[in-house]
């Protein structure tokens, strides 16, 4: 929405959809590699009420063997909505609380909203008043609005001094109890104000800058989080307000939705649209913020959320609690399965986000991006691609026993392999696909290789050194290729070539794992425990691993209708390139 000012219009001349998307992110920026944990599962609620509650939620994930990386605290953790403070009754030991989480590789995200409570004695209010950091009204006085804390004012992030002051609030000494394992949620930063009148920040009319306020807010947060760790650790920030360029600093969620099938369905076009607008790190509140999701809706939402970039369950304070274990055991089991699917693919997601940071292309893609000659794809927004490899069709209606899925790539005889059964379908447009409550249609494109980590643990951090299963889905020419990105998952060391970006290729003769940039290495402990080759027509007789000077004969078994070959425990280390040769 633009109420005033000039609009700059840019025209991107790209040939193909991908070219346009790339050109757009060249202009506005693409998201840097997020900290790896942020691609895992987030558990949020307004509110986890005290330290005991946080501990019990954390423990229950382990009791019920459901992986989770982050527990979130909404506004109630503060001392009466004064941000950068803690409610000392309910959260007397925040550092210990965080330590309990990090002991299992988990993190905390705490909310910091931009409205500042106008309360005498509150340091932030007094500093901002004294130093003139607040947005002014038309008469030049500090603008007063109304939000969660009651009477509030708003920092003028367009003032570099004010932004700098705000960034410094994130220093550990200024926000006691936080650490590198505490990340930030900037909500209400449109900014959300109940009483609305003309207000000005440093000679800027609000009309001019409304859309940008949130961007400058998260920018200051981002800077503060970089500064607090001396630029060592990557910050994770979630924002509600978004503008061109937001992706450089924060992930975006689709705001306060409700536990309704329609809202689950809407999460797909909303995130697809944001993705095309440069913001790949998108998600909707799993389960719906308002209202209570019954078991089927909750199950479907977890299954859908597990395949969307930002995967967080959230709920309103007035609604019934709905952590996964509060449903019938059969539903809890389905939710566990959905989360495990996410974790098994965590390195696939991480690789997609690395590639996005390089090429600016969306992580979550509309079908027409890769199949622009198929007109039917132009309007499809209930299914999408992850990278160019996975085709995802969430189930977003009640009682579904089958859904319509469009299989693109008819002209090139593209094969799509069901990720559960490895059964291939030849692309031929729409088909009805049977589903059960345990399944949403997800297909791996023939010709692709996807890295999986099948030893799903409590949190993604605990899986860092775990071995890979490489799933090779063959195209009609019996070839496939993929990629894998590995680094420490949390620092900027990757900028010093401390990472691995590998191409993985398969032909009938050999499978290779080679580094795109030889100079970039990372001492990962990970190895290959299994290679699954789906769609094999003539199985090789022998396979031999070549790594360094060593050669090792490998064992293989055939499965399903003799078209799925499993290479047992190649044990090749991922820290070095390797090659497997096949003979027939």
């Amino acid at each position, binding site marked *: 929405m633009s109420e005033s000012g000039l609009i700059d219009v840019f025209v991107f001349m790209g040939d193909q959809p991908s070219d346009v998307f790339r050109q757009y992110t060249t202009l506005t920026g693409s998201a840097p590699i997020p900290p790896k944990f942020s691609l895992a599962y987030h558990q949020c609620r307004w509110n986890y009420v005290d330290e005991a509650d946080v501990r019990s939620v954390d423990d229950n994930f382990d009791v019920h063997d459901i992986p989770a990386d982050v527990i979130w605290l909404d506004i109630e953790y503060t001392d009466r909505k004064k941000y950068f403070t803690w409610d000392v009754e309910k959260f007397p030991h925040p550092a210990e609380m965080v330590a309990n989480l990090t002991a299992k590789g988990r993190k905390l995200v705490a909310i910091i909203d931009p409205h500042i409570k106008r309360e005498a004695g509150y340091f932030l209010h007094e500093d901002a008043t004294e130093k003139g950091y607040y947005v002014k009204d038309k008469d030049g006085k500090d603008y007063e609005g109304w939000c969660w804390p009651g009477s509030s004012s708003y920092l003028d992030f367009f003032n570099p001094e004010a932004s700098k002051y705000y960034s410094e609030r994130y220093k550990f000494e200024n926000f006691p109890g936080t650490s590198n394992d505490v990340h930030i949620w900037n909500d209400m930063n449109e900014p959300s104000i109940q009483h609305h009148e003309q207000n000005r920040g440093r000679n800027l009319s609000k009309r001019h800058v409304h859309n940008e306020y949130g961007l400058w807010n998260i920018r200051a947060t981002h800077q503060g989080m970089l500064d607090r760790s001396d630029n060592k650790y990557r910050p994770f920030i979630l924002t509600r307000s978004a503008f061109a360029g937001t992706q450089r600093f924060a992930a975006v969620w689709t705001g306060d939705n409700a536990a309704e099938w329609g809202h689950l369905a809407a999460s797909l076009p909303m995130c697809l649209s944001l993705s095309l607008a440069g913001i790949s790190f998108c998600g909707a509140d799993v389960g719906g913020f308002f209202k209570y999701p019954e078991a089927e809706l909750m199950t479907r939402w977890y299954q859908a959320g597990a395949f969307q970039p930002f995967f967080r369950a959230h709920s309103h304070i*007035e609604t*019934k*609690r709905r952590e996964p274990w509060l449903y019938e055991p059969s539903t809890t089991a389905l939710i566990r399965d959905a989360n495990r699917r996410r974790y098994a693919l965590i390195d696939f997601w991480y690789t997609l986000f690395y590639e996005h940071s390089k090429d600016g292309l969306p992580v979550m893609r509309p079908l027409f991006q890769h199949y622009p000659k198929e007109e039917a794809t132009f309007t499809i927004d209930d299914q999408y691609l992850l990278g160019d490899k996975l085709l995802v069709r969430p189930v977003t209606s009640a009682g579904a026993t089958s859904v319509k899925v469009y299989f693109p790539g008819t002209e090139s005889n593209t094969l799509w392999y069901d990720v559960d059964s490895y059964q291939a379908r030849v692309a031929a447009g729409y088909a009805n696909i049977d589903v059960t409550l345990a399944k949403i249609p997800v297909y791996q494109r023939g010709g692709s290789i996807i890295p999986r980590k099948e030893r799903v643990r409590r949190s993604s951090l605990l899986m860092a050194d775990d071995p890979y299963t490489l799933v090779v889905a063959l195209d009609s020419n019996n070839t496939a290729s993929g990629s894998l990105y590995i680094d420490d998952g949390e620092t900027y060391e990757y900028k010093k070539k401390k990472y691995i970006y590998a191409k993985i290729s398969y032909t009938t003769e050999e499978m290779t794992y080679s580094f795109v940039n030889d100079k970039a290495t990372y001492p990962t402990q990970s190895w290959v425990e299994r290679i699954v080759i789906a769609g094999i027509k003539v199985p090789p007789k022998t396979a031999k691993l070549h790594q360094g000077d060593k050669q090792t004969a490998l064992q293989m078994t055939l499965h399903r209708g003799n078209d799925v070959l499993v290479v047992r425990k190649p044990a090749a280390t991922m820290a070095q390139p390797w090659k497997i040769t096949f003979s027939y």
Partner: protein
Amino acid sequence: MICSTWINRFYSFVLIISSTVIFVQSDVPRPRGVSLSKASLYSPTKDFTCFDGTVTIPFSYVNDDYCDCFDGSDEPGTSACLNGVFHCTNAGHRAQNIPSSRVNDGVCDCCDGTDEYAFPNICSNICEELGREARAEAQRLAEIHKAGSHVRLELIEKGNKRRNEMAEQLSQLESDKAEAEKIKSEKEVLKNELESKENEALKVYRDAEEKERQLKAEEEKEKLVKEATEHFIRFDANSDAILTIDEIKVVNAFDKDKDGQVDEEETKYFFGENESVDQDTFISITWPLLKPLLMMEQGMFRPAQAEGEVDQDIEAVDPKEDHDAEDLGIEDDSLDIDLPQDDHEEQEVEQEQHKTYDDDTQKLVDDATEARRQLTDAERTVREIESNIRNIKENLEKDYGLLQEWATLDGQCLEYEDKEYIYKLCLFQKVTQKSKNGGSEVSLGSWGEWAGSDNKYSAMKYTNGMGCWNGPNRMTIVNINCGLETKLLSVTEPFRCEYKIELETPAACDDSNATQNQSSHDEL
């Protein structure tokens, strides 16, 4: 941390046991992560068949960090199978089965540290320490249970006494009731007798009244006929004793909608399908329709139909109010059933008293009135006894524990204060919450049922409290543990509008339970 003097006593005892265990453990070789009971399923001299029987693999594949079995049974000691189970012996403390995903993940899950064998330095064996603490805690609990069960015995005794008292009370009440019912029927007979006499005496008066009433009605009717006839004659312009449409067309009074003419609709209104009416028909049908219009014309009358419409509107606009009124009415009834009856009778009596009767009749009326009052009293006595019986029966039917240990706690109220609220639990009755800043008491539930999962007497449920805004009715779970006195330890709201109270009471102490606890901790 919970250390006291008798730990030392325990310590030597534990040492003996754990050394035995080490001996047993070293005696039976088994793959890593396998419990003693399953050791025989892993024989190094044979191929290994997965527990589900689907796959057989060389024994060298067991614990080789690759998952071959669908059931995970080939990798008890590694993290290779997502559905695998790792067993830690935890000598000195309780043995444990953990998911395979917790093996070598850098987090110490087993107190003996065996789950992190890939990182020998991160976990130390703390089973001795934990075991000691657990045993000390078990010992402490046992002491409390022991001391508490003495109090519990008293509670049981008192509870049984109370129940016996209640049973006695009940039988007393039953005989009281029989007596009261007898009185009631006597009073009823008396009342009927006196009332029939009263009726007889009053009949004279009533007959007179009836006659007067009939007379009045006849006069009214005559007046009406006279009035109608007068008008009929006036409207009947040609005096042929038949009133025709043409004749009424010139009479203003028939212009119902006051548009200056008597149209077809209006003639139909007065005459129906007829072209004309005779005098009788006019009197019986037309006149009653016409008279209000005439009166209105003379400004004496507002049309009844219009009033009806207004009333209907009011009802349509606010049907809720009506409902509320009804609801209130129902509540009143249930609050005091005999009130309306009394009112009614008293009114009648009053009315009749206004009249003057001769002395004999007056005496009969007074006698009958007194008989009615006595019957009402007798009926009330019966109802009161019945209500007492109901209460006692309800209490007798309440589950006060296997040995009546809870019986004397019924109605006992316990309070707990936190920063904002004062909570009150009245056992077997209700739970309430009151803000320290004032405001009214909020119901967090009324006695529902025992709700413990293993032992049903380990938790109580109070349900159907005040409704939450936009949510369910409040309810409370009371978790019960053994303690030397009956008190509340905490009140929390773990789920919205679902409260949790921790209650300690000697009623929950159990000597046998205490020894059970102790033995389970010694199990290895």
